[in-house]
């Protein structure tokens, strides 16, 4: 049987299955009756916007401005589920009544809460998977540009670290650990049902205004993510935007403004200490490297590297004490304005908003601006046909600064390195020249000049639009079709003038225009039915998605002057275009079945075909199954009144990771150009092997969970144990050089993430003074179980650092890898006696001889720490009393190590250094320091700056992430002002961090999204402390 024929058969089988199911599900029809009524709160006031849902179906409505509803229900034993945020859900048996008024009582909202799952919604009590929800209220507490920053510390199992403090800077988002070594680790984002591909400038979540988000649901286990098949293994984050509710038009204005400052400055050496440090470093280096050298030798006989600047040999009291941090950091404003309107009738509901957000960076010449809009419409065209649309246009603008990395081209490291005796400006008010060093000093770009004159700008226009039509074919059976597009147009411009470092920088400019368009069509049948004790909720569907990306770049150099700050000012010398297309076809199905509302079963399956997979391995199938037992519904539990709810859950399933890149299965050729006849000659060489079997990564996940709440839901606990095994990973195996290539992409290996998550919510006091506590904690253990060979090591580094991380069997991904420092030699004799480091002297690092060959070299490297935390947690408290609310969010991570490369590079008596390293350094046997810091030496023959445990520091921290104090202006005042509501608030973000870490901030990762090289601190853009004041008005 040829493969074409096989696939056609496969196709037909799928179609038949789906058709059969659809026909089966449509086989019933019933008579209906119309119910009306009014919904009120505990005081008898009408409640607009209350959701009424026919139990076991998706048929429902909401109350209008007067709290009145009208709904068609089948005759017989129909049950209405009445729910409203902040109130206990009620179930009302219709019993053929035509008028039913309902009074809701406030209370625990969590059980009746509707959770957004893939291709549908479910009530929280019916969930069998591990899903955590965050409401808009919790997102909007923080004045941040992206929702990812607001989620930090809110969800167990969701590890978010802001590795870059720049406005719109990168965050690392991991759900239940690092699953993939070489593929992507970012979860799938689904906006209003649309799985989006991230693209554009900076962090893509910046293009979504957090205030437009109604709720976020984090899908963690296989049962909930398998419906997303080959994209589900890193977890899924479902973002639901705010939609209109029937009722009176409601207009809201939200505005806040405030300022940000660097949360911590480093304590650097002043000129006097610096002079001492430099003198020691240069003298030590001179004596070690030049056999005939003497400390008393003048500069004229010393090699450049060991000269001591004359200025430091003169009167130091006349020299300035510049702290370069003071001139690159600033107090930066932040502001946000949003106007939104929502309302409608039961026929047409609308929600729209317009917002403006602006955040200047705490480093000069950086900032982010965003204009965002939202339009959501839902229309009920007939009793059977509903249509709707989501439109989220946004325009984002980033002014970037080259902040991160080596001092040669980045502001922060330059500021930390520059000698304090150099003034910022010369006598004429011009930038001091810092690029023409003499007497052993080295060149730096002037950080202020660099920030101001190197221009890096980006803009992105994003239009996310999704439209749906839903038709109720029969009672309970619906067909839904959605068509959507996510259109991104972005632009990056860079202009690098040769002003701040003419020694090695030539004026050059780059212009890049990118386009990323993504379209999706999804067609699903859903069926909801309750017959007696049996409730079924099923969905089957078919989807097709296409992602196209194109970018065009042009570069120019040879600028006659710096008057024109774009490529037009010079000679265009390079240009390129890149296009990628990724297509996917999928079939999906899910059945939820519950018996007696006690025994819950869910089964899902998705079949994905993807253009990314090799020709001989194009389709993958991803099944999952889960069960839940609502123990609290059992009769034997009825007596235990202190138990409000108790449910046990278990799930197991297979998901995939298709983040393996486009065209990776196809052998490619790359430019290998040369010069012939004194002109550029285009050449080509093979750059990758063909692997027609290359496919997705497979994740098998087991989840065991328990949800329980006690004491009238005053205490609610969710706990999960999970074991994730990622196999068939996208793996770049090392190949012998003799093949002509040094690596090849194959699927192999295994990584395990195992962990425990615990989320605890307690309502400590519920009277006039309300106090709620949310606590969550996650313990995750990451371990590589298999690679292509037992001995294989994948070495990693970032920002041009030497290798500092390894991925190997038996250890977590990206473990720190280097020599183990076992002390500082106190005397030359001690170094000689040790005998394994031929050039070591007193004050040099002593390393362990790992391989016991009597000699210390690169073969003595071993795992010396992990950049991943042992556990992380969030501890959030909300207080309210009368009109006042106080929210205190704290979060923390414990056990991770950080490679402080800023400190390691600055230990040579060339760059400036932190005071702690100076105070505790080795000077002599009588002044040995604290045994952690070695001597100052330039060009150490012992190679003290080789990566070792001496440069690893504990990164554990506890952060007071957010404190927000609000006051709801009393109704009497509000009414006098003719307002619907009014609230004022003040927020302090990143208020204080408890940590022993000696860098700016322990939440740092210089490698961006590369998890194999995490935990590097090297000229980081530090985090800001933000204070804002806001007002929220409703009309």
């Amino acid at each position, binding site marked *: 049987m040829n493969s074409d024929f096989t*696939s056609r058969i496969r*196709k037909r089988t799928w*179609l038949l299955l789906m*058709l059969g199911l659809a026909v089966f599900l449509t086989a019933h029809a019933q008579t209906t009756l119309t119910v009306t009524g009014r919904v009120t709160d505990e005081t008898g006031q009408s409640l607009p916007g209350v959701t009424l849902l026919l139990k076991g179906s998706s048929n429902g409505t909401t109350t209008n401005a007067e709290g009145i509803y009208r709904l068609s229900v089948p005759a017989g034993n129909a049950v209405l589920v009445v729910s409203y945020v902040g109130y206990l859900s009620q179930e009302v048996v219709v019993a053929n009544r035509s008028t039913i008024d309902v009074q809701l009582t406030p209370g625990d909202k969590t059980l009746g809460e509707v959770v957004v799952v893939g291709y549908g919604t479910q009530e929280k009590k019916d969930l069998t998977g591990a899903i955590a929800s965050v409401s808009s209220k919790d997102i909007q507490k923080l004045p941040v540009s992206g929702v990812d920053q607001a989620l930090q510390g809110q969800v167990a199992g969701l590890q978010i670290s802001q590795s870059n403090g720049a406005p719109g800077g990168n965050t690392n988002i991991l759900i239940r650990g690092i699953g993939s070594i070489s593929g992507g680790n970012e979860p799938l984002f689904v906006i209003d049902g649309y799985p989006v591909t991230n693209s554009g400038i900076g962090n893509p979540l910046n293009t979504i205004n957090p205030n437009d988000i109604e709720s976020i649901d984090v899908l963690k286990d296989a049962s909930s993510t398998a419906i997303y098949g080959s994209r589900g293994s890193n977890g899924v984050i479902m973002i639901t935007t705010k939609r209109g509710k029937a009722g009176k038009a409601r207009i809201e204005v939200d505005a806040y403004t405030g300022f940000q400052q660097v949360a911590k400055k480093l304590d650097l050496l002043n000129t006097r200490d610096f002079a001492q440090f430099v003198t020691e470093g240069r003298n030590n280096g001179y004596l070690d490297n030049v056999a005939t050298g003497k400390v008393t030798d003048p500069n004229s006989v010393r090699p*450049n590297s060991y000269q001591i600047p004359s200025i430091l040999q003169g009167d130091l009291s006349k020299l300035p004490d510049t702290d370069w941090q003071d001139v690159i950091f600033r107090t930066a404003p932040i502001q946000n304005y949003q106007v939104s309107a929502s309302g409608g009738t039961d026929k047409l509901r609308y929600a729209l908003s317009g917002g403006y957000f602006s955040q200047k960076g705490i480093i000069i010449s950086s900032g982010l601006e965003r204009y965002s809009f939202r339009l959501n419409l839902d229309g009920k065209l007939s009793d059977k046909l509903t249509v709707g649309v989501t439109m989220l246009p946004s325009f984002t603008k980033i002014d970037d600064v080259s902040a991160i990395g080596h001092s040669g081209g980045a502001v922060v490291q330059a500021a930390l390195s520059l000698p304090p005796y150099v003034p910022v400006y010369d006598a004429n008010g011009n930038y001091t020249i810092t690029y*023409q060093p003499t007497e052993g000093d080295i060149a730096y770009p002037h950080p202020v000049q660099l920030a101001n004159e190197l221009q890096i700008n980006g803009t992105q226009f994003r239009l996310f639009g999704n439209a749906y039509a839903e038709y109720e*074919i029969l009672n309970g059976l619906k*067909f839904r079709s959605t068509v959507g597009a996510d259109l991104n147009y972005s632009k990056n411009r860079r202009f690098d003038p*040769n002003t701040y470092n003419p*020694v090695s920088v*030539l004026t*050059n400019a780059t212009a890049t225009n990118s386009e990323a368009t993504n379209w999706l069509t999804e*067609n699903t049948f859903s069926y909801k039915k309750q017959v007696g004790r049996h409730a079924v909720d099923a969905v089957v569907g*078919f989807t*097709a998605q*296409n992602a196209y990306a194109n970018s065009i770049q042009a570069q120019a150099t040879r600028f006659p002057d710096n008057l024109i700050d774009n490529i037009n000012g010079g000679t265009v*010398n390079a240009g390129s*275009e*890149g*296009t990628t*297309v990724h*297509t996917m*076809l999928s*079939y999906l199905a899910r059945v939820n079945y519950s018996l007696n509302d006690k025994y819950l079963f869910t089964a899902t399956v998705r079949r994905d075909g*993807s*253009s990314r997979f090799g020709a001989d391995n*194009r389709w993958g199938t991803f099944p999952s199954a889960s069960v839940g037992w609502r123990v609290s519904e059992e009769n034997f539990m009825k007596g235990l009144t202190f138990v409000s709810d108790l449910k046990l859950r278990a799930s197991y399933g297979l998901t995939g990771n298709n983040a393996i890149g486009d*065209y990776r299965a*196809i052998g*490619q*050729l790359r430019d*290998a150009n*040369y*010069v*012939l006849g*004194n*002109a*550029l*000659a*285009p*050449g*080509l*060489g093979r750059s990758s*092997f063909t692997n027609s079997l290359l496919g997705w990564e497979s994740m098998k996940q087991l989840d065991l969970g328990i949800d329980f709440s006690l004491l009238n839901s005053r205490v609610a606990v969710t706990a999960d144990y999970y074991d994730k095994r990622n196999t068939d990973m996208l793996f770049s*195996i090392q*190949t*012998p*050089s003799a*093949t*002509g290539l040094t690596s090849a992409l*194959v699927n192999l290996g295994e990584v395990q993430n195992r962990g425990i998550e615990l989320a605890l919510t307690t309502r400590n006091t519920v009277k006039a003074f309300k106090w709620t506590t949310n606590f969550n904690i996650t313990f995750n253990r990451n371990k590589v179980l298999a690679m292509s*060979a037992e001995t294989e090591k994948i070495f990693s580094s970032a920002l041009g650092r*030497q290798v500092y991380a390894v991925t190997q069997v038996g250890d977590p991904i990206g473990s720190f890898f280097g020599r183990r420092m076992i002390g500082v030699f106190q005397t030359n004799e001690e170094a000689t006696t040790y005998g394994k480091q031929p050039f070591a002297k007193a004050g040099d690092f002593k390393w362990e001889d790992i391989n016991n060959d009597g000699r210390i070299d*690169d073969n003595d490297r071993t795992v010396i720490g992990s950049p991943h935390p042992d556990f992380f947690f969030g501890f959030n408290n909300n207080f309210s009393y009368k009109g006042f609310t106080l929210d205190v969010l704290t979060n923390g991570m414990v056990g991770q190590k950080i490679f402080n490369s800023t400190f390691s590079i600055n230990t040579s008596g060339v760059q400036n250094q932190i005071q702690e390293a100076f105070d505790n350094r080795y000077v002599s046997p009588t002044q040995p320091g604290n045994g952690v810091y070695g001597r100052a030496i330039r*060009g*150490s*023959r012992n*190679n003290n700056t*080789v*990566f070792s445990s001496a440069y690893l520091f504990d990164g554990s921290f506890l952060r007071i992430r957010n404190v927000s104090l609000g006051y709801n202006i009393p109704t009497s005042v509000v009414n006098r002002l003719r307002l619907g509501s009014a609230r004022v608030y003040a927020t302090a973000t990143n208020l204080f961090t408890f940590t022993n870490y000696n860098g700016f901030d322990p939440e740092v990762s210089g490698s961006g999204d590369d998890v194999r090289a995490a935990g590097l601190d090297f000229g980081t853009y530090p985090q800001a402390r933000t204070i804002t004041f806001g007002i929220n008005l409703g009309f």
Partner: protein
Amino acid sequence: MKIKYISLVLLALLSTACEESFLEQVPVTERSEVNFYKTTADFNNAVVGVYATLKNPGLYGGGSGALFSMSEIITDNTDLGVTRQPVNLPIFEIDDYLITISNATVGAAWTGHYLGIARTNAILDRLPATTIPQASKDRFEGEAKFMRAMFYFNLVRFFGDVQLLTSEVSSPYGANDLPRSPAAQVYELIVNDLKAAEEKLPATIANAEAGRASRWAAKSLLGKVYLTLKQYDNAAAKLKEVVDSKAHDLMPSYASVFANTTSFAANREVIFAVQYLSGQIGQGSDMWSNWAPFNAGTVLLGTGGGGGGGFNRPTADLVKAYEAGDVRKDASLLTTYKNAQGRDVADAYVVKFRQQGALNADSDVDFPILRYADVLLMYAEALNEQGKTADALPFLNQVRKRAGLADKTGLTQATMRLALEDERRVELAFENHRWFDLLRTDRYMTVLTAKGLKVLSHQKLYPIPLREIDLNKKLTQNTGY
């Protein structure tokens, strides 16, 4: 009910009509193997790709390549004039004779040369079956074989027995069990390749093709191979062909051999060279800025010229090695430079490849691999080793004369050897010959230890990179490592 069926039909249509073609996506802005190696242009591009390997970091590219460290810094010619930092540890390991099996420079050389070999094999595998014109076919074959021979010649001299591959490996696992072949077998391939190359390659290279290999390049290299194999009669015969052809000659001025102002047509001395071109297109040479004194700065290198790398710093011993009046000294190295304050800083550096005003790592000066002075001195060596010292002497003196030095006279075979050794050292300084010369004459221990250098006898071969042994259990390590 109607809508239901319509939608089902739509769904069915959508899912069947375009499934396979919808998922069939091939790169549109990158070239893939699927359609390559068909036309003359394709093969030409592939051959250019072979030449481009010369700019691999394992050879001459990316920080001046691995070769200068492995053939100059390891000798008494140069050292590394950089402040010690972990990043340059691999080169210091070579400088200090503390070479480890994981040395990154040695690893890069291994990998870079095999990359070039794979590219030549890909061409040589496919040429027989193509229908491109015979003339192109012959030339591409000659070029691929010349280059393959050169790559293997470096490998066999650095590592001894090496893996011998003569066709492309299409599976990632295709070389996992490939053991090392005896050096003699490798030399057999080298000699055969060069014999084929001298047949197939043209005698003259048009200006528009400057940089491609000629017949004389193949013959010169073959002469060098024979000399290394101590087949002195073969070597002398082959080198004589080059000398007698008059295709190449010494340039009247030593400095003009390396000047970027000397055109290809005018430069009769260079037989084969790495081609460089400025213009910020990734084809410039970094031998000037990289080998200028560490941190010298703008005064020496000019605006945009780079900071000065301090790599390949001439030793005091080399500075002394030039005889008084040798014009090659100032054309090859200087010992001081002026800093921004106008003060002299004592730090020797290479000026052979100087291009004043060039941007950082972007100079035009080509780097000679084979040139006529080398041919003359090799020819003299081959003759002398056959006992024809008197016949050899004129070729030595031809080189000395151009350098402004008096003729040598009255040499015995033994003193001629030493004279050639000294002459090659200064004539060919910084051109990656010194280490191979000392190995060929087996004088590396005597010469280097006499100067207090701590070279170890087993270091005549570099270690097989640890990475390769980890991937292939059949690879053995060289003794002493």
